[in-house]
């Protein structure tokens, strides 16, 4: 059982006992004896009956959670935000959501078939990857883009490394960054939620949706904010694209032009953006469920947001005309979905509280560095991927010492 020990000790240190219980990879050493140790992390069939007289290493307290249960809960927590995006952007958003999620599941099944069961589609991780990916895409993404993204997420980012539990990078974000480089045009075309605007222009929208004014001007509508004008606009054109608030902000400080929407717009999502970044409030709702059920701990999201706030606050204080304030940076882009749903991915983030805080702060600071001085207007996905790469080294230096050992001592060779 030496190899087994290694697997479990990696995750189940004393400091993380409560957490490790939920790290489903390690909570089933009993069943894992049937498999080779490497696969133990990948598939741990919950339904296997406990056998008599099997000797297993810690943890011995089982929480009754399983990979698939956690995955499907997270999936469900994302559904309100996904539904909202369908309401805002219409059929286009529904197609993106369906192709990404369905595509990921189908591709995972194919991988399972070809690798003779070394990954498992039942654990729900593929469906979650697909949904998360869909939420990072612009509503107008084509079917081809969605399928390529699902392939990259499931095969290149996960299966190639040995399946769930072995992937060094968050699969959904890897896929998104791949798509961003692969399809730079379509991936940066953000449609305005036009039809939804037309139905409830006053209720949904604040007073200063300036991009809408600009869109109306370009199509010779004097006042594009009234319902009738919006209806005829929506009937006249397929789609109007506009820059996301972050892109506008970036132009703003570079050239001193461009107007921004109000914060209430950001909160309900009446702005151009990817499916999952348009509704902060519904994402927070889903995140609250995860926090209450204990599926994610507060460390990573809070330190992530803190990193963003500190960085944005300092730059805003230094030069308020050039840099936007922290609230703007929290409400726009993918900070919320990234902090609560992506950075907290068990496999690719540190295990111990101190490591989590370092990880989260790193994500927040990198996000802001990319947003303020980088080439792209949005930096959440890059920041999380970079910190994913740093996870092993953070883990190495934040591992709690075992009782009786000197702090920072090298772990004994077992």
């Amino acid at each position, binding site marked *: 059982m030496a190899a087994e020990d290694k697997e479990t000790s990696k995750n189940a240190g004393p400091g993380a006992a409560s957490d490790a219980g939920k790290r489903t990879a390690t909570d089933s050493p009993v069943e894992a004896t049937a498999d080779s140790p490497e696969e133990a992390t990948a598939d741990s069939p919950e339904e296997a009956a406990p056998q008599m007289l099997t000797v297993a290493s810690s943890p011995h307290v089982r929480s009754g959670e399983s990979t698939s249960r956690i995955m499907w809960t997270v999936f469900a927590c994302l559904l309100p935000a996904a539904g909202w995006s369908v309401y805002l952007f219409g059929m286009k958003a529904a197609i993106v959501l369906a192709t990404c999620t369905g595509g990921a599941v189908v591709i995972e099944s194919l991988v399972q078939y070809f690798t003779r069961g070394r990954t498992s589609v039942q654990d729900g991780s593929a469906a979650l990857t697909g949904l998360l990916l869909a939420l990072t895409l612009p509503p107008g993404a084509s079917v081809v883009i969605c399928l390529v993204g699902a392939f990259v997420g499931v095969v290149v980012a996960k299966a190639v490394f040995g399946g769930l539990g072995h992937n060094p990078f968050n699969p959904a974000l890897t896929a998104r960054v791949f798509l961003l480089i692969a399809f*730079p*045009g379509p991936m*940066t*075309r953000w449609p305005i939620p036009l039809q939804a605007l037309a139905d409830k222009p006053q209720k949904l929208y604040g007073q200063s949706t300036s991009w809408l004014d*600009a869109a109306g*001007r*370009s199509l010779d509508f004097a006042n594009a904010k009234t319902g009738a004008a919006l209806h005829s606009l929506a009937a006249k054109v397929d789609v109007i*694209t506009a820059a996301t608030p972050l892109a506008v902000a970036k132009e703003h400080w570079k*050239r001193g*032009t461009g107007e921004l929407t109000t914060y209430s717009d950001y909160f309900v999502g009446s702005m151009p953006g990817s499916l999952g970044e348009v509704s902060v409030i519904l994402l927070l709702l889903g995140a609250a469920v995860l926090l209450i059920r204990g599926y994610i701990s507060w460390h990573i999201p809070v330190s992530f947001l803190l990193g963003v706030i500190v960085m944005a606050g300092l730059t805003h204080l230094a030069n308020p005309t050039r840099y936007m304030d922290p609230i703007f940076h929290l409400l726009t882009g993918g900070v919320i979905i990234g902090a609560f749903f992506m950075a907290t991915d068990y496999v690719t983030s540190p295990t111990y509280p101190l490591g989590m805080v370092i990880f989260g702060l790193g994500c927040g600071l990198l996000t802001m560095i990319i947003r303020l001085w980088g080439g792209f207007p949005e930096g959440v996905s890059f920041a999380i991927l970079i910190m994913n790469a740093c996870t092993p080294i953070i883990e190495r230096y934040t591992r709690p010492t075992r009782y009786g050992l000197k702090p920072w001592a090298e772990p004994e060779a077992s």
Partner: protein
Amino acid sequence: MPDTKEAKKLDQDAAPTTDGSAEQASQDSPMRLVATLIIVTGVAGAALAGANALTKDRIAAAKAAKKLASIKKVLPRCSNNPVKDAIKVKSPKGSEVEVYRCRSRQPDGSAPVVAVAIQQSSTGNRHKPYSGLIQVMVGIDARTGKVRSFKNNKGSDDVAVVIVKLSETPGLGSKAQDYDFRKAFAGRDLVDKDRTSDGKLWATRKDNPQLGFVDAISGATITSRAVTEIVQKALAVWNANKKIILTKGLDAPPKRPTTTPTREKRP
């Protein structure tokens, strides 16, 4: 690996026939080493010198043909060779620019300049390209001072703005080579530094929604701005040197161009 074994055997077979063990010592003598190197490098040098002599003209011709090809793309049918009929002028910023002139022989024997090709690069641009250098060849109608537009030999519309060199991101900035982007420049001229004669501004529509006339490539605004400025610079060179270009070094007495228009379409 049967081949390796066999190779070794071959090596051993070959060794005694050529250099025996007695010869091994002499093989390592410094003189022998130096001599070998001198001979090898000498033979290599001689071979390359010969090859250079054989290919030199051909390479020069290929380079000239390449230049002529991009010039020809922006000029109508000429009765002269524009590369040979080039003059050097000063740009408004003071750098030296070569202007390639295209003449059309008239029935009366004169050959006025009907169009010119001017190449400009992004060097010194206010709007820098995204990466590397952009070079653009611009064809200007000598009678109107406007960027030429014409039908190309495939019969479709084209504009005399040709990207000679560009190292922008493929798929984004590289779309500056597409007609969809370049067509914005067709028939544009330059008056007053940054205006066209019909009051438009030399800017992308993104920077100036009312007056700008260039539709920026989606996702590559930086490249669009850079190319716009380069084309504008080429027109500025034309504006500053119109007289010299039209009159200097004429092979026929200066005459006002007659009304006969040159044929834009190539047969």
